[in-house]
């Protein structure tokens, strides 16, 4: 059987959860003797010059014979279509040559929904699978389902409500956008949702429930064998791992840290690991900088910048508690799997797939309402130096499924179609 994984970006070009999953599944397939695997990563038409060749839309990644970059121009970020003649021609030929039986899409951005039409046209017998990593089909605002103006999770995705976030568009535009996704998705044989929350939101949106299977993203564990779980003496180090975007809630963590520090004489340490500040709003970055500047003496905020998957285990082990204060409905939160790998209890907002689904309060972590500074401050105070709680929660952690397990779950779905 031949397997083609199509991703937005490649971890070698830019790091991100969805491309890690696509690459991991490709690697697992590539090592599976029953499968012949390929990876095609869309990189758009700007940046990543190291992968571009003049006049070519599909090029091989260095040091690989089966991983390709696809550069296409003119991607329409609203309708998620490309209609680039050169890239279309190249993709038609690529599909004809590789002739995959299973085509697994991980995104619509830069790939384009027209790619699904092309696949169906060139390979009518191929089965198309689509992993729903985010909410792009439902929400044109970066697929976050988060209303920035109201700072709350979006629960009503009717076109007239979308206009509130994007006033330059009409409700009819959003109707058409939904139709575009729906039309493309009618050609998809089966969807994969990494979390039950995604399954629920997409079912509400209109995908048939039976066409979506929940398969958690596999995790490449880095924990050494026989590793002894370690922690700080004071259990007072709280870590944030993730992108520095508005919706990731760093401001909520800092405000909660300040509130907690004002209510105790203990020292609280917050370590911030994360990059991609360029995607955050200026106002947000300013407010975060001001919060850091205004910290009381017993709150120490340490910024470490970007990290990679290769060193995340050691970084996770350098904190006692991992805080995931997202105010947007997280779809899966890879950071939770990484925290679990280091046996770190996660204190998470209940947004999306976090609270209730992945983090069960008082069993493997603790949960607070999204955006609630007071509730998070309370949990920080409860956690400080609380070795009994830490041990209970750490022992309650069950490792995330491995990449190989996830690949096996995928192959079962492929064979069922």
């Amino acid at each position, binding site marked *: 059987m031949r397997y083609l994984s199509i991703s937005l970006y490649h971890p070698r070009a830019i790091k991100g959860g969805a491309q890690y999953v696509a690459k991991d599944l490709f690697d697992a397939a590539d090592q599976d003797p029953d499968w012949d695997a390929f990876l095609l990563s869309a990189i758009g038409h700007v940046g990543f010059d190291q992968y571009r060749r003049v006049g070519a839309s599909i090029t091989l990644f260095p040091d690989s014979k089966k991983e390709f970059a696809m550069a296409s121009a*003119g991607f329409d970020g609203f*309708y998620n*279509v*490309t*209609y*680039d*003649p050169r*890239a*279309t*021609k190249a993709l*038609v030929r690529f599909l004809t040559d590789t002739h995959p039986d299973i085509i697994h899409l991980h995104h619509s951005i830069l790939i384009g929904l*027209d790619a699904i*039409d*092309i696949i169906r*046209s*060139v390979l009518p017998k191929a089965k198309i699978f689509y992993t729903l990593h985010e909410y792009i089909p439902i929400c044109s605002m970066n697929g976050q389902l988060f209303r920035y103006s109201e700072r709350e999770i979006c629960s009503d995705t009717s*076109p007239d409500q979308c*206009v509130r976030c994007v006033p330059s568009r*009409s*409700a*009819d535009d959003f*109707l*058409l956008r939904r*139709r*575009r996704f*729906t*039309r493309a998705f009618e050609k998809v044989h089966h969807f994969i949702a990494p979390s039950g929350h995604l399954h629920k939101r997409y079912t509400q949106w209109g995908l048939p429930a039976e066409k979506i299977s929940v398969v958690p993203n596999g995790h490449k564990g880095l924990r050494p064998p026989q590793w002894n779980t370690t922690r700080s003496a004071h259990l007072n180090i709280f870590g944030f791992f993730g992108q520095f975007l508005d919706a990731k809630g760093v401001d909520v963590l800092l405000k909660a840290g300040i509130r907690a520090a004002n209510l105790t004489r203990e020292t609280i340490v917050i370590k911030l690991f994360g990059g991609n500040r360029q995607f955050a709003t200026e106002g947000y970055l300013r407010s975060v900088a001001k919060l850091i500047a205004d910290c009381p003496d017993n709150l120490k905020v340490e910024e470490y910048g970007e990290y990679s998957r290769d060193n995340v285990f050691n970084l996770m082990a350098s904190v006692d508690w991992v805080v995931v204060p997202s105010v947007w409905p997280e779809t899966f939160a890879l950071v939770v799997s990484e925290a679990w790998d280091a046996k770190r209890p996660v204190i998470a907002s209940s947004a999306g797939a976090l609270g209730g689904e992945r983090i069960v309060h008082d069993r493997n972590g603790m949960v607070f309402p999204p955006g609630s500074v007071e509730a998070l401050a309370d949990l920080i105070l409860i956690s400080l130096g609380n070795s009994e709680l830490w041990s209970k929660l750490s022992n309650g952690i069950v490792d995330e499924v491995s990449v190989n397990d996830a690949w096996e779950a995928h192959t079962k779905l492929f064979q069922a179609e």
Partner: protein
Amino acid sequence: MSLPREDREMKFLPELYALNNADVVVAIGGENPDQLYTHYQSNGRYEIRFPNSNQYINLEDVFYSSGGHFLLVGWADRRILGEFKLTVEVGYVCFDIINQDFCWHSRPDVNTVIGGSNLNAGFICLVQLSNLTLSSRVTIRLGALILHFNEAARWLSPDNFLNRALGAACAIADKPIGIGLESANFLFPAFHSIWNEYRSSLNYVKVFDNSVSVSIRRSIVIVQHRQADFLLEQLGELSRIGLPDDAEILLVGNELENAVTLCDNLTAYCLVNKVNIRMFLCSGNSGFSAANNFAATVALGETLFFMNPDIFPSPTQSADEFKEFWSAPLENELTGHLLYYGTGSIMHSGMFATYDLAFDPTTASHNKALRIEHLGKDLRWHIEDVTCPIKASSDLTVGKSILASAALWKINKDLFVRSGGFSTDYIFAYYEDADYCMRFLTMGGRIVVDPSSRWIHLEGAGKPMSSTKRCFMWLNRALFTQRFGDSTLLVEPIDSMTLI
């Protein structure tokens, strides 16, 4: 006890006239009272020879085109100025704008300032001077009073001038039709002249051709204006419901932006969709009528499907349900279709023409102003309803024939051409489809609404309408009224109140 006013004697003041008008004294060679009075009677009173005359007239906007068109917008206190003329000097030639050139309209804001008048104070003048030699200097004067002076005149292209003039005239278009109809009738010939002149200067060129079938029997005509935002989505939806192999899509772009990118997109689209597509670009904006008429002349199919760029098939109907739409045979009828809003509620299932009484007490005018109404609007019919609204609406036209919106038409090409196509007299768009329907019916044609397929019409709801568009809709309404005001096809207003 004072005398009645009419019995009082009015005397001419020759000394004051001489004092304020030294040029007249020089011209007549002295201060002879009789000569001064004669000058006043024959010239002076029309030349506005009084102090502070600029307090009684104001030019608020002036622009001109390289085609010799001039548009003047302003106001005047006609009680003081009487029947005046303006002189336009262009370089070393001049011409007059006389009373008959002024379209007067009410300006309550001006009336408040000048003390109230039963004479309309606002004016718009739209005139053309043929064979004008353009110059850098333009002066407009009222007698000795200079109202406009420009030593570095910018001459607009005719299309820019037309659009700007339409925007300027919108001040009247936005008034109630009773007040504005006469103005529309007054201004339409001048606008129509520019429109015709501009339109006749345009041409079409083929820019894309993906012909994969030898035999074409159906032509789907889609006219795009400026942006083709929806085109690829529309094509995708048409592919979804299954375009017949013998169908071609004929695109005509008016002032199309990003045409090169669009051609690229179509190339990509056609690589995986075996669809016959040709696209023609117009060198400007030829309007809805001319572009569709042009498409009809180059269409290869014997059946034409006129389709607006914002028409989409029902998302809940299958390809099978659209078979009849494509293949039902046509005889001598024009076929319209069921149109729904994006939300799924009915937009309309046909149209009829009725009229308002347009009256203006200040001018004692009293006329019909025709209006197109849509059957089904405001009703709760939904695109997914099993019951079709068409029968009910047909029954409700009180014996009058139904009209069909050209948002989606199906008609035999020969019949369309033989019946004269769309009237290109309508500026840019609107009312041309109702005009065609009225002519078609008068010639004995039959109009039906096909209930077999349902369509969504995303007519730009929620987007503000530009002043230019509001104005040409108003002018086109006036033309439609002139043409069909006496038609027996009109539904009486009282009957229209029960039609929905």
